[in-house]
């Protein structure tokens, strides 16, 4: 070894960014917050939330969690509205791949980390997989109380009376619950949680799930989690029950299946056609149709629309 002559020679070669973009201090902070979130299911953990090289509100919360968890051995899947090729999903996926040098996939079964906006896949997730949901508004009480300082107190007291009142008002005005996506749930019999804006169709998939779900809002600087095998129940009355979106009319134009979450495609004559929202699942079904070899996992809802935890859905 020859003695170096300049400081430049001694210095570490210039590197534009750390592995997976975030510096190690940011990753450490995120991992600690994630552990806390897992320890207190459904509780919103504040975190610093670094500015990312994509716009706030475009998945920066999910992205920071993914980047703090990803390692060279991971296989990453990114979906937006159920679609791997949606433009923002494509953008996030190429950023993660560029910064972490990981393999990417559209196959739900192959992925170790799944970052998603607004959907949980139709194939059942398994132990060891982590689902990272992008969250715009982490506070389920925002609709009844805009102040974060006040909702923190309400969570501390488990004071969710206003939410039951909202349900009751819906019943009185409309004859049923009319919350669309992000239907509020109680996690582990303690915290009220908004399950990102996933449709009600996907909400039951969080209950006693084999996988870990981490929900992260970058702009609002809050993350929370549903650990594996945790109780997640939508708020409902003893005699009026939560229900998922009706998927009885739509038959997927590409695959012929029904009883799955569909995209409705308006037709010029005023009618609608339907295609599967989960594009990876649709691709697999098409491959199967063509006689190609393909592994399709267990699904959450069978061909008659029955959920895999029998008795969980009461209506």
């Amino acid at each position, binding site marked *: 070894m020859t003695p170096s002559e300049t400081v430049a020679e001694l210095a570490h070669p210039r590197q534009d960014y750390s592995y997976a973009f975030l510096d190690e201090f*940011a990753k450490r902070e995120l991992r600690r917050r994630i552990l806390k979130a897992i320890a207190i299911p459904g509780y919103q953990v504040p975190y610093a939330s670094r500015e*990312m090289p994509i*716009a706030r509100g475009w998945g920066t919360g999910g992205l920071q969690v993914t980047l703090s968890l990803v390692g060279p051995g991971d296989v990453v899947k990114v979906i937006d509205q159920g679609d791997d*090729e949606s433009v923002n999903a*494509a953008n996030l996926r190429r950023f993660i791949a560029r910064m972490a040098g990981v393999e990417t996939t559209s196959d739900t079964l192959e992925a170790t980390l799944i970052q998603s906006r607004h959907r949980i896949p139709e194939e059942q997730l398994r132990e060891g997989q982590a689902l990272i949901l992008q969250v715009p508004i982490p506070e389920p009480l925002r609709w009844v109380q805009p102040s974060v300082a006040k909702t923190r107190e309400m969570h501390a007291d488990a004071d969710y009376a206003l939410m039951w009142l909202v349900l009751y008002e819906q019943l009185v005005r409309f004859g049923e619950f009319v*919350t*669309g996506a992000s239907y509020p749930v109680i996690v582990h019999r303690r915290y009220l949680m908004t399950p990102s804006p996933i*449709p*009600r169709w996907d909400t039951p998939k969080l209950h006693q799930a084999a996988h870990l779900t981490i929900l992260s809002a970058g702009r609002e600087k809050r993350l929370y989690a549903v650990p594996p095998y945790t109780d997640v129940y939508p708020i409902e009355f003893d005699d009026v029950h939560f229900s998922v979106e009706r998927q009885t009319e739509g038959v997927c134009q590409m695959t012929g299946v029904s009883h799955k979450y569909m995209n*409705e495609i308006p037709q010029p004559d005023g009618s609608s056609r339907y295609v599967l929202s989960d594009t990876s699942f649709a691709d697999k079904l098409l491959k199967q149709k063509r006689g190609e070899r393909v592994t399709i996992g267990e699904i959450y809802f069978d061909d008659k629309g029955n959920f895999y935890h029998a008795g969980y859905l009461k209506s």
Partner: protein
Amino acid sequence: MAYVATRGGEKAIQRAEQLYRALNGAFDADFVRAIERHMPYLMDRVMGEGSLYAPEMAALALAQAGGDLYEAVLLLRAYRSTLPRLAYAEPVDDEALLAVRRVSAAFKDIPGGQILGPTLDYSHRILTTQVLDNGHEASRPEPEAAEKPAPTNYPSVSGWHRLTGLMTRMEEHEPPDPAELPDVTREPIVFPASREHRLQSISRADTGGILALGYAGMRGYGLTHPTVNEVKLAYADVRLRHPITGAVFSAGRIRVTHTEVVSTSADGLELGFAATMGWNEVKTIAAAMLDMEMSKPEPHPAHTEEFVLYHTEPVEASGFCIHFKLPHYVTFNSALDSIRRVRSRREGGNRLQQMIQTAVKEKAS
């Protein structure tokens, strides 16, 4: 099949960016330097909101974003995220600022004097079209040096109020260890916020957002008519302690704005304060006013700390606003499901009423 799925996302976004760049044209290092040299107030605004004092990078961000302020601020913030924190500067005493302009509306004259300094406040806002006609500005006189140079440092006006008992005196304390101060970029803000988090947040807040909320207060919602105690444009020495020798040295100077406003209640004067990197008087005057409003026991709803600090965050506000362009068809479909259920229930209800009416009629006849 009528349905054409929008696939090929990666190719689409690459082409979209290429198209954007092609439309905006190329730029080079000379252009970046020209922005840095000739657009100081634009630079100050981007560096202040980006909370990174890096003129070269701010000029690059502006060039790269085609002059889009929110994009430029985001570029700078995202770059800032990747930088290590090497050292903490020594606290800056406002009386040690190298001021080039300081005015007070509270008194005709103040200790140290009123110094107009460089300002367009009393200029006629007339476009100099001769630049376009002649290709250059008409010859302009060089500013003459004053007979007696203005001082570089000024005693604080609020210091005088405190000395005379008009304002509550500050408790004597040791200067804080900068490394121990709460840092809003490294930890989440919770409410009520620490004084540090509040001042840091308004320092990097959106100029337009701060102005809108501040103006609402000045105009009538909350109705404060603050007196500008002191506005100061200055250079601040960034003083660092050498890690080995312990000697304090200046690593350079940055442009800063420092503003105090006071409200006059019968109890005495109350202070509102704001400071930011770069020269930006409109922002710090509005921010100092909001600081005072936020400290009231019952502020107007639009002037509570949570309302002001959350909604004037430029990167968060602009990002969330433009995120609504993203597809939302999954959640939209879920909402349609609810609407259709309610509709069919109502129609069903009407049918039921019809059946009852028919039955009643049949019975009657």
